[in-house]
Structure formats: C-alpha cells, structure tokens
C-alpha cells in the first residue's frame, strides 16, 4: 500500500487547472461552497476504490461516474462547463510513481469511451480506503444495499460503499495497542460499542442496545469511525476521505475528532478531509505535534471563475482562508455594534 502524492485536474467539474501535491499525513481542504472540495475527494477516492475488492472489476472511468452520478450517467457532464468543446483530464499519482488518468470531452457519454491510462499498473497494489460522506448512512442501512443494487434509488456510490465497509466483519486476531487506544477513545466519546444485528446497527452500552435511528447523527459518525477501525478498514497504509467531519457534531466534540484523525495519521493512515468549520481547523492547529504532517489546501475561484488552489503546511499560511475571513467580518461588526462610532 502507498500514499497518494499528487493530483492534476484539467477542466474537470469546476477546476480549470489544478496541480497539487499532497501530504502523506492529513490533507485539510477548505474553500467556500461550490469550490469543488467534495469533487476533489471523490476523484481521489474513485482512484483508490478501483484497486480493492469488487470495485477492482470497474474501470476508473466507471467508478468516477458512479461516485459523481452525473445526469443520465453522462461522463461529459463532469467536464468544466464552457461555451466551447472542452477536454477534461484527471490524473492521480501515488508514491512510487504509478499514475492513473482518465481523459474525456464534454461530448463523451459512456465510461467505456473515456481514455483511461495506467490502470493495470495502478491496480497491482491495493489502496484500501473509506469515504465518509456528509450524510450519515448507517441508520439507513437496512435494505439500502439491496435497493441500491436494483438501481431503484439515485444515490452516489459513496453511500453504498461506506455501508458495505461498515458491514465488514471484525478484524481477526488481537488488536494492537495503538488501535485499541483509538477504539477506547472513541468508545468514551460515543459511550459504548457498535454492534450489528442483520442490517441494523446498535450502540451497545450499560443501558442496553440503542438503535442508530435514536442516536444523535454526530454520534453515528463517530460510531462509524469506530467500526472502520475495528474491522481493519482504517489501518496503516489505508486512506480515509472524510467530507465535513464537523457535520451534526457539537463543537465540544471536535477536539476528540481531531485527535482521532491525528492519531490515525500517526498510525500511517493518509487522511483527506474537507471542512467549513473554524473549530476543527483551530483544533488541528492547537493539537498538531512536531512530527504530525498536515497540509492545508485552500480552494477559491479566480477572476475567470475557475477554481484554483493554494497549499500551506501551516495554518497561518492558509490563504485565502474563507473560514477565518467570516470570523473577521463578524468581529468587525461586533466591535462596531459594541463601541459605536467613537468621536474625539
């Protein structure tokens, strides 16, 4: 297993030309709504997913289509919208130099018509991964996979994928010390362990079994991470994609979530996450230790409307920082309200 080192996007969704190197540790992606944070996560995730299990049968193009779910399944709709014909390209590189790319135009319909290169070499070694979407799915697991398999619901494939990963059986053998420490920390936060009965998930603690539908949504997310660690999906060498970890989570729990993410990184898990949340960003800044590898990627639109990026390995170097700017604006207004106009 290896890490993802680089991505290059040309005319893909909202990106005109994105060319970014990643940290082998935690990659924090920020930006206003509509700057393609989730798109970036999905393009990377699709590249990882096709190296493992049943998805190995799928081409990168097909997996891209399934996780993005464009209208009528048309690949061309993933090309950046312009008045003229446009060539789109996604290229992902991993440590060791293997490169996977997909090229298509805005006229391409089927995934089979996408030019995929580097796939055989790319699939030679696995890149185990998990993608945690913004919407919590475990509570909706009963019957979901069967319904999705019949193509009766229009859900992006990231949703079925995460349920499948949650259903994986517990990793055999003794749990090593580091993993056990993580599991214990999460158990404390969610106040119990997760058990599955058929397709139903429950939180098990001293009060008994609590069905997931009765559990706060933020807690379900943490329970999912517990499951993924317990069943070995998140191990050294695997990759975690987490879209807005802060969704439905009380800010008081944010520190524990960041600690879990940092700890996963210390165990060798590469992490990609998106966020709109100041508390989450600041927790990373405050909890980061000397050897932790964190890279911040700020996505923003340039004058032409195309999304571009700036990377920084320190929180203070993040520019533009849409989240901090919002606080600056609030602070300005608070000072004006609190003090009024001071005349001398």
């Amino acid at each position, binding site marked *: 297993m290896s890490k993802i080192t680089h991505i290059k996007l040309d005319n893909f969704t909202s990106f005109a030309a994105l060319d970014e190197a990643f940290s082998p540790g935690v990659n924090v992606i920020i930006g206003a709504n509509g700057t393609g944070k989730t798109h970036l996560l999905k393009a990377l995730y699709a590249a990882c997913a096709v190296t493992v299990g049943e998805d190995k049968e799928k081409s990168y193009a097909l997996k891209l289509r399934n996780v993005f779910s464009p209208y009528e399944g048309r690949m061309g709709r993933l090309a950046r919208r312009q008045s003229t014909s446009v060539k789109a390209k996604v290229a992902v590189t991993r440590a060791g130099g293997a490169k996977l790319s997909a090229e298509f135009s805005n006229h391409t319909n089927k995934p089979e018509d996408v030019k995929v290169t580097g796939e055989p070499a790319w699939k030679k070694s696995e890149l185990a991964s998990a993608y945690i979407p913004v919407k919590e799915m475990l509570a909706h697991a009963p019957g979901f996979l069967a319904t999705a398999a019949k193509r009766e619901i229009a859900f992006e494939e990231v949703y079925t994928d995460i349920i499948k990963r949650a259903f994986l059986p517990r990793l055999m053998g003794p749990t090593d010390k580091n993993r056990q420490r993580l599991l214990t920390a999460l158990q404390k936060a969610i106040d119990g362990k997760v058990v599955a009965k058929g397709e139903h998930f429950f939180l098990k603690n001293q009060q008994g079994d609590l069905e997931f539908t009765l559990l706060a949504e933020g807690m379900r997310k943490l329970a999912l991470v517990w499951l993924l660690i317990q069943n070995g999906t998140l191990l050294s060498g695997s990759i975690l994609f987490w879209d807005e970890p802060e969704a439905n989570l009380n800010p008081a729990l944010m520190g524990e979530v960041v600690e879990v993410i940092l700890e996963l990184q210390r165990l060798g898990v590469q992490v990609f996450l998106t966020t709109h949340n100041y508390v989450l960003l600041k927790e990373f800044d405050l909890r980061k230790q000397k050897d932790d590898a964190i890279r911040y990627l700020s996505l923003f639109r340039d004058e032409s409307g195309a999304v571009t990026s700036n990377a920084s390995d320190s929180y203070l170097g993040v520019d533009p920082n849409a989240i901090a700017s919002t*606080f600056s604006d*609030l*602070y300005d207004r608070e*000072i004006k*309200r*609190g*003090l009024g106009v*001071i*005349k001398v």
Partner: protein
Amino acid sequence: MTVLAEDDLQIVLPAGVVGRKFDDETSHGLSHCMKAVDFIVELEDRVLFIEFKDPENPNALQKDSAAFIKKFLGGQLDTDLKTKYRDSWLYEWAEGRAKKPIYYLVLIGSSALSDADLLARTDSLNRQIPVVGPGGGSWKKPFVAGCAVMNLATWNKTLPHIPASRVGL
C-alpha cells in the same frame, strides 16, 4: 497631547482629551481591596476604561508569553478583566464621576490572536461583565455601554484618533 503608557504599550491622546493612569497605587489609594483598569479617558460623549495586556512585551520570556495566550484563549483571564472593570466602575461611581456611558476596551499586545479568538473573548467579556441584565433584557441603569477586546491592528482601525503602538518602536 498626552501619552498613556504601560511598559511597552502606549496610546496617544489628541489635544484636549483628558486621560489618566488609574491603576496607580498612590493615587488610587484602595489597591489593597479594589482592582483597577490601567487608564480612564474622558471623551465628549463617553468614558473609556482601558486595560492593557502585553504578552509580547520585549521583556517577557517566550514561555510566559505562550502561557498567557493559553490562559487568555481558555477564558482564565476573564474573571480578572471583569473584576477590574466592576471595581473601577464602583470606584468612579462612588466618587460621583460615573456620569457618561462607560466603554471597556482591552488592548492585547499579541499578533498571535486571530479575529475569531478576539471575537470569542469579546463575547465572553460581554457575558461576564455582564452587558445585559436579568433575563437577557437591558439594565434599568446600565453600568457598561459596550466592551471590546482588540489587538493593536483592530484598535488603530477602531480608534484612529487615539493611536496605540509599542513604546520601543
């Protein structure tokens, strides 16, 4: 023109504006039982109670500066700031001087604090003083008109006529 300084931080009052050092053992006379803000400045329509905190004082050790920021962000200085204001207000009221609306300005000499941090501390100070009365309503006789926690940049943007700076620069 009056300069009010405390260690390495200073503000310059324009001509005609009266201000005094308040946290002065001799002139205050009750330092053993009442806390005091650093300065009191009187403007035409209001009075400013001003407190300086300077973690980046050139004489401060780096570890002390970091410890201050940690305490400040954790809200551990709120009680000190609140008590300074309330005791100063009580002192001025008892001396028959609290006639105009009073604003509380805290100047933090630190470049390490973000606007979000300053906003959070301003909110907290508003709650601690407290600016609003019982049940979240207005006081019948408000004893504070407003408060703000600012760094040098925000101070100079908000009070350009009373510039703040480092003495050593």
